[in-house]
């Protein structure tokens, strides 16, 4: 216990280094993607001489609401929120606006993701720093189209995240748009959840292969799932191609090793930096309200462009 207390003191000391305080409410720091955003945010803050307060919602919307209340109560200079739920987040924006605390969204938009295009930043937000999920799906679709057989209708399986996340639909929609744009002939013969985890992806791919041995391509909506899926594909002796989304370190290693064919490269640290900069500039800043960065789809040949940040 004493050790834990000492560790706690250390962390507290480093957290309150002085300077203006900015808060980041993350979905959960045990998710590497969120942790990388937090890293980008606090490093940029440190460079700007500010203190970053990073909160961990642990995947719980209610906790995130509490976190944001706590940040507002502490009168920080600005809040970046990585919303667990885009619709729910509208209330937080209202609340922050009412207390005159600048608020920005990072990694996901605020507002109904079905009706609001990502570039249409929710009123009341200082900025939105995010990759465009539909674009990510589209990039994956365009790349995947180049691998599909020309002579017949290709059979594709989609490994979704978990039910209830807007990315599931966005990345799938973008993927179909990308394939269509490239003029691919295909049929999606299975769409099953892999629960965002590698073991979930592995199980889903194994099971789909048992039912549909002739799959040509697995589109995994996240990189964790694609590396699990790769194992299933190899074990079943299938020749299906594999593509993921995210650009995680593991996926990049797998692409280098030839186990996975491609992924879409996200840069969470950049997102964190963009969010901080937007808050730091303040409402009077001249930057655009929607801030993003390029998300190329990479293959073994081009994987050098993508540095795994999570």
């Amino acid at each position, binding site marked *: 216990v004493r050790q834990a207390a000492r560790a706690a003191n250390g962390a507290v000391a480093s957290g309150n280094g002085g300077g203006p305080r900015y808060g980041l409410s993350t979905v959960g720091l045990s998710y590497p993607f969120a942790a990388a955003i937090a890293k980008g945010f606090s490093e940029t803050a440190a460079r700007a001489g500010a203190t970053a307060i990073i909160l961990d919602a642990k995947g719980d919307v*209610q906790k995130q609401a509490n976190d944001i209340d706590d940040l507002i109560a502490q009168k920080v200079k600005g809040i970046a929120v990585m919303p*667990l739920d885009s619709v729910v987040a509208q209330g937080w924006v209202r609340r922050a606006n009412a207390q005159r605390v600048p608020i920005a969204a990072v990694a996901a938009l605020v507002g109904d993701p079905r009706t609001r295009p990502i570039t249409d930043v929710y009123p009341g937000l200082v900025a939105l720093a995010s990759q465009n999920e539909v674009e990510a799906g589209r990039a994956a679709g365009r790349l995947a189209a180049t691998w599909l057989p020309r002579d017949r209708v290709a059979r594709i399986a989609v490994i979704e995240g978990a039910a209830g996340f807007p990315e599931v639909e966005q990345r799938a929609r973008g993927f179909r748009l990308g394939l269509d744009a490239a003029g691919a002939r295909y049929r999606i013969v299975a769409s099953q959840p892999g629960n965002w985890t590698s073991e979930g992806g592995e199980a889903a791919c194994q099971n789909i292969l048992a039912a549909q041995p002739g799959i040509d391509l697995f589109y995994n909506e996240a990189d964790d799932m694609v590396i699990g899926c790769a194992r299933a594909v190899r074990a079943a002796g299938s020749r299906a191609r594999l593509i993921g989304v995210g650009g995680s370190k593991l996926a990049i290693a797998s692409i280098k090793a030839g186990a996975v064919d491609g992924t879409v490269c996200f840069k969470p640290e950049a997102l964190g930096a963009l969010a901080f900069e937007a808050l730091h500039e303040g409402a009077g800043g001249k930057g655009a309200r929607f801030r993003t960065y390029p998300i190329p789809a990479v293959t073994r040949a081009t994987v050098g462009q993508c540095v795994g940040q999570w």
Partner: protein
Amino acid sequence: MNRTTDWRQIFGLREAGVYYALLILLALLAAIAQSQGLPNYLSAQNLGNIAYQASLVGIMGVAMTVMLITGAFDLSVASVAALAAAVLIGLAPGIGFPLAALAAITTAIGIGIVNGVIVQFVGINAFIVTLGTLTAVRGLVLVLTDGRSLMVERPEVLQQMLAFESTRVPLFWPLLAIAAALLVLAALKRRPLPGLGGVVIAALALLAGRGFAVAAPVVYLALFTAIVWAVLRFTVVGRRVYAVGGNAEAARLSGISVHAYKIGAFILSSAAAGFAGVLFGCRLGAINPTALQGAELTVIAAAILGGTSLLGGAGSVVKTVVGALLLFTLTNGFNVLNLGASYQGLIEGIVVIAAAAIYTVGGKRGARKAAA
């Protein structure tokens, strides 16, 4: 021998352990905040925040305590709350807030009845039944919302919902009134304990100042806790709840209809979850399909931290609320002190065990009683 007030027992670690644990934690956090030059940790606003944050878990925890006292278990509360919220958000634009809230709570009660009937009449273990409904009800939420977040768009309905959830209730005068009532009671009945309570409450109210107000859910939690506490303590129904959990067969052979009490507990638990879901829905004006996922363990943890036994027959709803406050004080403390995220889990786990240890170690008598 007349029933004298046994001070040693009332303030002993076993009886009052969870209060001490909370006080120690608050004092510790206040001291650290002080030493870091942060604003006063024990401000009325911050304490109000903690209470507000703990209110949903507290409401579900109070009902869960009754459930645990009868010797059963409900893992489905968080899913049921999410379902109630989904029903509320889905219906409110159409039929207005009050009716939608009623529908939400009715739905929740329906699931409580299903749980209770399966457990009591089919005779399946409560753990597996409510694990099943946890999954099935969450599935239902997904089906209802089609996997998307829903929100209420009609501003006047939204306004009503916000009013129900976010109104701040001034508490200065009510608290003073309660304190006075307690003091009068103490004087009339010659029992010092309520008097002491009255003094503490008056002191708190005066410290917090005239402008002291809390969010509505805190008041709902306080009222619900007070009612359930009074029922358990002063009524025959309450006595029978304990009897059913303490020895179901003896209760049955004393003419208590054990089935009714056990099913009643499931209904109470689900109704409370439904109410919590309504508050949740009102708070956000929206519902996402994964809302409140995993909250059931927090709810049960609050009850057990409050000293309720998993074996049935013992437990106190007030201490459950204190247990919930303890858990949320911890996370609030992490936020206020801006503690590194990596260490939070480690510290939280250790604090939970340490808090539980405080009163277990204090009362060996307690350990024996729990074993009986």
